[in-house]
């Protein structure tokens, strides 16, 4: 897991509800078994015109948002398909944090495992940060402190957030989740032995 303690940078508003993972990266670009190579097709349908040229209307094609590290989103961001290439594509583009009122459940976990923190904040707060960012022409920086569990808006306003303890710890330390679980090998073996006696058909 790639470590993240704090990110400060450009924040791009994309305030539309139900942005699904098909929009984040269409199925056509999921090809290959590589861990990388998906960022170029992030938001492909909106980011490029029919002739393949960048769509000048799309926010991530406009400076300074083309260097954004933080995404300001609306409810149910990342709903739909479980494709882990969605957070991979966001990470490769440069995103390290997404602030939204709610996230698709599978996407939420996938973000942590790809070096991105999904932060749940009420929509009023996300909109207020977006307004500050807009007012600065996009240059005002937003900060997401994973360690202190606080988002700092350009105005200095501080918004604390909750995060799942285990995933947050793993993200901060950049831990190998599998190694952590394997360290519980004895506990797992004991459980499986007892469970197998009880439910032999499950094994």
């Amino acid at each position: 897991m790639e470590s993240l303690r704090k990110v400060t940078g450009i924040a791009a508003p994309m305030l539309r509800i139900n942005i699904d993972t098909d929009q984040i990266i269409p199925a056509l670009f999921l090809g290959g078994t590589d861990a990388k190579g998906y960022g170029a097709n992030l938001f492909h349908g909106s980011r490029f015109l029919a002739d393949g040229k960048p769509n000048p209307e799309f926010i991530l094609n406009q400076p300074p948002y083309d260097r954004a590290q933080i995404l300001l989103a609306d409810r149910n961001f990342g709903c739909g398909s479980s494709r882990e290439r969605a957070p991979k594509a966001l990470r490769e583009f440069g995103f390290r944090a997404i602030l939204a009122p709610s996230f698709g459940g599978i996407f939420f976990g996938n973000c942590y495992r790809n070096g991105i923190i999904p932060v749940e904040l009420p929509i009023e707060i996300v909109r207020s940060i977006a307004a500050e960012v807009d007012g600065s022409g996009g240059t005002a920086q937003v900060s997401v402190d994973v360690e202190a569990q606080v988002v700092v808006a350009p105005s200095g306003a501080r918004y604390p957030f909750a995060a799942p303890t285990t995933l947050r710890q793993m993200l901060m330390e950049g831990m190998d989740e599998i190694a952590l679980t394997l360290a519980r090998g004895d506990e797992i073996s004991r459980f499986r032995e007892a469970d197998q006696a009880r439910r032999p058909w499950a094994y």
Partner: protein
Amino acid sequence: MSALPPRTFFDKVWADHVIARLGDDAELLQIDRLVLHELSGSQAVRALAEAGRTPVSRGQVFTVIEHLISTEPGRGPTDSVSKSGPIMIETTRKASRDWGFHFIDYDDPRQGIAHVIAPELGIAFPGATLVCCDSHTSTVGGVGALTWGIGASEAEHVLATQTLSQAKPRTMRVNFTGRLAPGVYAKDMILALIGRIGAQGGIGYATEYAGSAVSALPIEGRLTLCNMSIEFSCKYGFVPPDETTIEYLKGREFSPKGADWDRAVAYWRTLPTDPGAAFDREVTVDCDALEPQVTWGISPQQVAPIGSSVPDPSQAADSEARQLATRALEYMCLAPGTPLKGIPIDVAYIGSCTNARLSDLRAAAEVLRGRKVKAGIQAVCVPGSTPVKRAAEAEGLDRIFKDAGFEWHESACGFCGHIGSDRFADLRVVSTTNRNFEGRQGPKTRTHLASPATVAASAIAGCIADARGIA
């Protein structure tokens, strides 16, 4: 006897799988079944190998070729409309053979869409935890299992440990009361529910489907119901086991046998929700008056009864709904007030883990029998599994489909998602699938979700049509 507090099905199955508590928000769960397909499974097996690890419980892992493999009759072992299909298929095939998973290849008579074959082969069973790198894994909850979609990294974790860390969700019960009228199906029930509670209504929940209309559903209908749980952003959907479930699973290839079967059944009968158990949220949908449903927008929540019209965004409840509806109508090229019945279509598609089981093909065939698909309409059927296809052929359904003008394909995920074929680009499709997202079935493809009967009726009429007036 100690008086245990009443518990839900979900609480019981969850508790039976907790190995350890991790911090204050997650638990390490035993995973009974991991199912992998070539689209995401290939990433998981490669990552595992590159990390120098090996699978810990191969007999609990099932792999199947179904996402990218071609649906064309006479397909070869790596045929795919996806450019990288062959490498993903080969990676999955090689890892499955090297590691000794239960592997179901493209030409195996048991092959099919993961969520169709998991119940069909008895890979899933009541009280099991089953995961797959695919959001529609919720489908399999229809046999009383706890099943959910995961990411490729989580699949790698399951391969290496046969466990998964999960935060326990809240619980919701959806009570489908009353009785479905003829010509109304499980697909209509779930679309109506999503229309009611919205595409975000299930975030953070596990949903139990209950009520007289659910008890009356055969397993295949329950699978359709559970399939679209993720379309209201609910990772887990299930129907606790009953006698219908037990009857369905008896004698299937991977179902318990002999004394194990008797022990398993005795245990499964303890799993349903106890009377008086509390849910965090309860929703009721009355099925007596339910009509066939059709989506008109780009989210499954944008749905309406077939007898109604495309809504007017200016009449929307709030600015958010207005914005969503406006964008949807622009994408769908629809004007407010247009009656849904009569919207001209270009393609009729029957397939996917939602609605391509034998009962779905029978419902469509009943409408198609002795009729012809309207000239100029592409009509395509991709059965949900090879056993479904064979069973349909054995009862002559393929002839009905073909005589009507439908293409009859080999089983795979097919045209539910856009993986390389532009056949449906910029066309209007009425589809038995689960997602009407922008671009889901192709560039500018405009998808209307509906039941197999509605799709069949629409294929004949050349426009969205109500099957009840035909069959």
